[in-house]
């Protein structure tokens, strides 16, 4: 099953390598990974999407906890949460027909065209990973030149927080 694990990590050199190393070393999967500092500059928040059975996920959270630099963590998928991923996608758009089609499609997905040239459109789409997958699928008729996805970021709904 797919799990989204959010981790508060001491913002020290090598701490990210430790998390990634743990997954590589013990043969766990990383489907996506995002990391950036929080409002407190001494801490980073890392969001990791992984999959595995309950036993594997339990081991993953336990081993993450064991890392000295891990301050706190939470399996977001265990309760109500919001998740978003950002995608930048560059497509070929030369003819008027192509340009109209891509524009229409982007509108349907509430995407924004953030760069335009005579031959290309670059679109930004935000949503769940499924939605981004669907957008790529919808553009199958066009020529996709490049895709850059941020990986999933997430947060609990309501009062629940992952803070110190």
């Amino acid at each position, binding site marked *: 099953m797919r799990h989204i694990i959010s981790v508060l990590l001491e913002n020290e050199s*090598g701490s990210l390598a430790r998390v990634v190393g743990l997954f590589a070393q013990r043969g766990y999967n990383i489907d996506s990974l995002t990391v950036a500092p929080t409002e407190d500059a001494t801490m980073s928040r890392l969001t990791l999407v992984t999959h595995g059975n309950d036993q594997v996920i339990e081991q993953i959270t336990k081993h993450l*906890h064991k890392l000295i630099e*891990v301050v706190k963590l939470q399996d977001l998928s265990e309760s109500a949460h919001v998740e978003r991923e950002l995608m930048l996608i560059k497509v070929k758009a030369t003819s008027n027909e192509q340009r109209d089609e891509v524009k229409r499609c982007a509108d349907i997905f509430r995407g924004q065209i953030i760069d335009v040239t005579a031959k290309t459109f670059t679109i930004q789409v935000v949503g769940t990973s499924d939605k981004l997958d669907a957008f790529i699928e919808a553009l199958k008729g066009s020529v996709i030149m490049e895709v850059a996805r941020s990986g999933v970021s997430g947060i609990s709904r309501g009062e629940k927080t992952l803070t110190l």
Partner: protein
Amino acid sequence: MTSQNTKTEMLSGAAMVIRALADEGVEYLYGYPGGAVLHIYDALFQQSKVKHVLVRHEQAATHMADAYARASGKAGVVLVTSGPGATNAVTGIATAYMDSIPMVVLTGQVMSHLIGGDAFQETDMLGISRPIVKHNMSVRRPEDIPYLIKKAFYIAQSGRPGPVVLDIPKDMTMPNERYPYQYPETLKLRSYNPTAAGHPGQIKKAVTALLQAKRPIIYSGGGVIMGQASEELTALARKLNYPVTNTLMGLGAYPADDSQFIGMLGMHGSYEANMTMHHADVILAVGARFDDRVTNNTKKFCPHATIIHIDIDPASISKTINAHIPIVGLVKPVLAAMVAQLEQKKTKPDSKALESWWQQIEAWRSVHGGEYQQDTPVLKPQAVIEAVSRITKGEAYVTSDVGQHQMFAAQYYKFNKPNRWINSGGLGTMGFGLPAAMGVKLNYPDADVVCVTGEGSIQMNIQELSTCKQYGLAVKIINLNNGYLGMVKQWQDMNYESRYASSYMDSLPDFVKLAEAYGHVGIRVTKPEELEPALERAFALKDQLVFLDIHVDPKEHVYPMHVPGGAMHEMFLSKTKRT
């Protein structure tokens, strides 16, 4: 970090390293100098509190420190230079990591501004050691050195212990740059706060389950040794009158001479221990991790048992075998709490069920009971270990290397005290035995320290005979010489129709002459009748290292042995018998 007053001492980074070790109470530092750590060595030279032991290869330094930690419970400390100095220490760090041994390893590093530029003797030691340490850190500012050293000891020795590497770039130790020194007395980390006491509700549940058992067993591991909980374990077992088995790492936690002790369990465990485990209805696992060398096939593991698992590391619980009653905490307070609860309870163990359980166990005991062929013209390795056990009254520190001799030592030496059996259980590091014996002897000069080894393993760190001479380390080396890599040969006999691919140790040195060349005493034993007198002589030579080159039967196998892929109770009992 802390407020600095006018009295604060000003020290160089190098001096701070040594001073912090002294303030931590470190007596010995095991290491080898080199370019990146010369400032530190110079600071070491200018004081007398911390003493340095110069090994002949960095791996030996790590094993010495490791063995000191296993014998004393306190972290051993290693100092090596950058590059090859650090990489030579890697095997020793991994050895300590696999057995959860506290160790602090200070590795030199090239100047900060050179890092990443492929400088001379530069290796990314943080990267290399990351998967085999509990934690690693590097010094970014010289003034952080006292804090980082405190942190290294704190992390290494608390929770589930393990090795910590501190990488020190050379420019952090410049002799002419001084900084205020103050060693922190305590340390608190927001991201690391290991649990100590177990959950009271879980402990209560465990006690109830234990009292309801009809066929109980206590299975204890290295956690009881490192957690210094041998006394509590013994008290609990005696109170309940339940059988006790120890893992390879846990030997000595419960006295081997006691009638409730049924031997080691696992791949080469005793028949009775493995049978008792398989048929048990309640297993109390204490500081043990259900290692593959214990469980055999996990799918067939102890099908009738309710499993209570006490461990300081939550990740060890339900990792390979699902625990029905998990208790996360230090084994010592948890066991003490269990004993206290038992004392207050009116319910007692089911004596009738226990009586028939013990009858069954006694019957199993008589099936194999560690038998081996007696009165043979060639010496049996088991007989050698039994003789050593007898002569040292089960009280020596026994270190071992890896292979058949290690298993014979574990099976036939009667360990009655904890912290006496020192071997590389998890990583299985050949070359561990001699440096380990040295580390123990240096710190316990009055104790008998025996290194049980083989002609394969001993040659992996034989250069340390020179270190032994330098520091007068009078260890007794029991070299069970059968001319083969015995355990490899055993597997080749059992699984490869005796095709001895590279398991034959041709061109062995004359170990007696070799010992003498290093300035020690060498004794060769080739006949059974020579054994006792040779051992008597060796142990009488209190101040000398004695290398006993004992020629033993090359055909001997270690039994019992788990049938691969089978359950706990499926074993080969000899070359011709199996369960």
